[in-house]
């Protein structure tokens, strides 16, 4: 961006949201504009605050699990997974391998679904209206699998503390593999529409650049961090479930701009398919529930457990006082912390880039506000 001096008198304050088509929910951004150039911004959040953490203190461990689905409602499976794993860690139980692989399959499917939703809306924000219909078509297939497994499409509550409530339905493996076969060429299709499209490249290259150091300083995680060239994925660094048993690569970007983050997420979808295929192969008959009693009463203590959710590091900090209710549950929402980097990324860009930057952060306001 060229250095220009601006007169304060020309500054126009514009309110983007909470009702705005490109803020992905009820995010409100106050923009200080000079013409169309953004001189500063402030995010106003909390419109969707429901006090999830307070609710947790008034529910038993098992009762709280469905609430986690309502935070990142486009990736409910991973949200639930983070919570049940945190409680399992607190309890010190290990869950059987069949349950682990099932969780991984569903979580990776959910990752694809979340990325698809992101890709479609991100493209729509930048004016490409067609990809959203294609990505939703594929997402629908995933939701069908989820629905067949647990009866819900969005707020799945797929897992239980200690394992799974239901075993897989007949033909699950076949359907998942069929989806993988069907889905891989579709990724190429999206890429054909966007990756080499000159307008797309112009709109995303050098937009919202975040260097690796800045990304770490701002605590950004997930694809946004990897887009900035930091090769860090919790699935590799501190594997949970059976992620240490499967092979996959961590795609990273070079420049930390919107285009790189786009490429990273597209590559992540391919890697997710790879993980799913391996998991399906290893899915052996066996028990699906670990040694957890009917009443969940963990020992006194605190655990922090985090997983690689589609949007970044999703952490649960659970404090137990030895009773049946958690004493405190803290959710470390990736969306909130990624959103904090918004101002840094937006300064000096044009209004049109703001929607690109909001899109590339892939926030879900249900999780930001909790």
């Amino acid at each position, binding site marked *: 961006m060229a250095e220009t001096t601006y007169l304060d008198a020309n500054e126009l304050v514009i309110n983007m949201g909470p009702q705005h088509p490109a803020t992905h929910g009820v995010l409100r951004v106050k923009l200080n504009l000079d013409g169309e150039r953004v001189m500063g911004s402030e995010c106003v959040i909390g419109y969707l605050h429901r006090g999830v953490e307070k609710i947790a203190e008034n529910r038993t461990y098992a009762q709280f699990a469905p609430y986690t689905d309502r935070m990142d409602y486009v990736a409910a499976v991973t949200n639930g997974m983070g919570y049940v794993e945190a409680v399992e860690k607190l309890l010190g139980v290990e869950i059987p391998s069949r349950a682990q692989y099932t969780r991984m399959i569903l979580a990776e499917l959910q990752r694809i679904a979340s990325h698809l939703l992101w890709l479609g809306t991100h493209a729509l924000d930048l004016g490409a209206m067609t990809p959203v219909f294609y990505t939703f078509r594929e997402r629908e297939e995933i939701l069908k699998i989820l629905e067949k497994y647990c009866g819900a499409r969005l707020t799945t509550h797929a897992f239980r503390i200690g394992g799974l409530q239901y075993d897989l339905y007949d033909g699950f493996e076949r359907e998942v593999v069929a989806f993988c076969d069907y889905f891989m060429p579709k990724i190429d299709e999206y890429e054909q529409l966007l990756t080499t499209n000159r*307008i797309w490249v112009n*709109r995303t290259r050098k937009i919202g650049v975040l260097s690796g150091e800045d990304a770490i300083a701002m605590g950004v995680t997930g694809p946004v961090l990897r887009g900035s060239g930091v090769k860090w994925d919790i699935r590799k660094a501190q594997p949970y479930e059976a992620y240490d048993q499967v092979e996959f690569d961590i795609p990273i970007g070079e420049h930390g701009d919107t285009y790189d983050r786009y490429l990273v997420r597209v590559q992540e979808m391919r890697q997710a398919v790879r993980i799913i295929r391996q998991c399906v192969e290893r899915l052996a008959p066996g028990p699906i529930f670990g040694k957890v009693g009917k009443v969940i009463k963990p020992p006194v203590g605190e655990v922090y457990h985090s997983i690689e959710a589609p949007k970044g590091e999703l952490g649960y900090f659970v404090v137990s006082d030895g009773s049946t209710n958690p004493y405190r549950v803290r959710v470390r929402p990736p969306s909130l912390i990624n959103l904090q980097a918004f101002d840094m990324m937006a300064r000096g860009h044009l209004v049109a880039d703001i929607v690109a930057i909001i899109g590339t952060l892939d926030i879900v306001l249900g999780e930001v506000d909790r």
Partner: protein
Amino acid sequence: MLENAFNVVMAHPLLLAVIKILIVFAVLSGIVAYLVYMERKVLAFMQARLGPMRVGPWGLLQPIADGLKLLLKEDIIPAGADKFVFLLAPAISVLAAFTVFAVIPFAGNFYISDINIGLLFILGVSSLGIYGIILGGWSSNSHYPLLGALRSSAQLVSYEVAAGMALVGVLLISNSLSMVEIVNRQQQMGVWNVFLQPLAFVIYVIAAVAETNRNPFDLPEAESELTAGFHTEYSGFRFALYFMAEYTNMVLVSCIAVTLFLGGWLRPFSSVHALDFLRWAPPVSLVGAAVFILWLGLQSRVPLERYFFVALALGCVAVGVIISYPLILNAVQGIFWFGVKVLAFLYAFIWYRATFPRYRYDQLMNVGWRWMIPLALANLIVTAVVRYLLSAHTPASPVAWLLR
């Protein structure tokens, strides 16, 4: 007595013009309404969905329902708006768009007027439409519309230049500003201007997309950035007027492009007599349409819909039979080919929308000023030089030619 009166009335110079205007206006309004339907359907099929299906068979009555809805909606005027300008602005847009059709020759024998400065008139009046957008955005007294209006004016001004210069290239080879004359000239030369001025054609098409605020240049109303751009505060019928102006402009730029570059009402290869059988295209395509409609209708499970489609197919066949009558067949040739070309153009407009992301404001300006205008200028100079060298009356030296 009666006959006498009839003759007097018919002899009145305004009468025929008024009738033509009414026809053009009515048909155009219908076309614009169904252009929206076509856009929704074509987009839908490109995006793996069906589009409007509920209002009428295959959603055919959707435009009427939309129009009614907009008419009956409350006309909201924001408290802080400049009321007079706010009310006037959409009317300016739509008026400017419709007025230009006065000089478009739909066929060799059907146009409202043929003035000898037709092209100038088009450029002049269509530029007036921008006032509607600027004033609408400004008078709303709101941020998003203002930004939309600013973008729009900058965009239109820059692309108008490129489009105008591209058109001058055509003028140089046509020797006339009259739209009818330009088409006639193409007939005489036996070649469409697009083959003589390909670069000008490409520049004009791009500029036309930009001038009509269509994707990928739809920044003034970029939904994801400016909610709805300049017409954010408009509702009800005034919003419908803007909407109509936009689509009328689409038809308009298509008509201009067809007239100037694609031989207007001429059928392809009009000078090749071996292809004279193409004159049967109108009835044949109508019968083809009838078959397609019948096929659609037979898939429907609703009896009423089936009857409707069958009736529609029969109607198509009937019209096809009527226009097969030699005299009528000759009369509809021009309008048919003109219509086909314009439709192809409109289809391309919709196609762009399904394919491209949106340009950013500064990138759009870059494309306009750094590429389109220099290219148009270069095209103009090259055309002028070639035209001079080929001219039969070439004077002894260029200097002499210039001083002539």
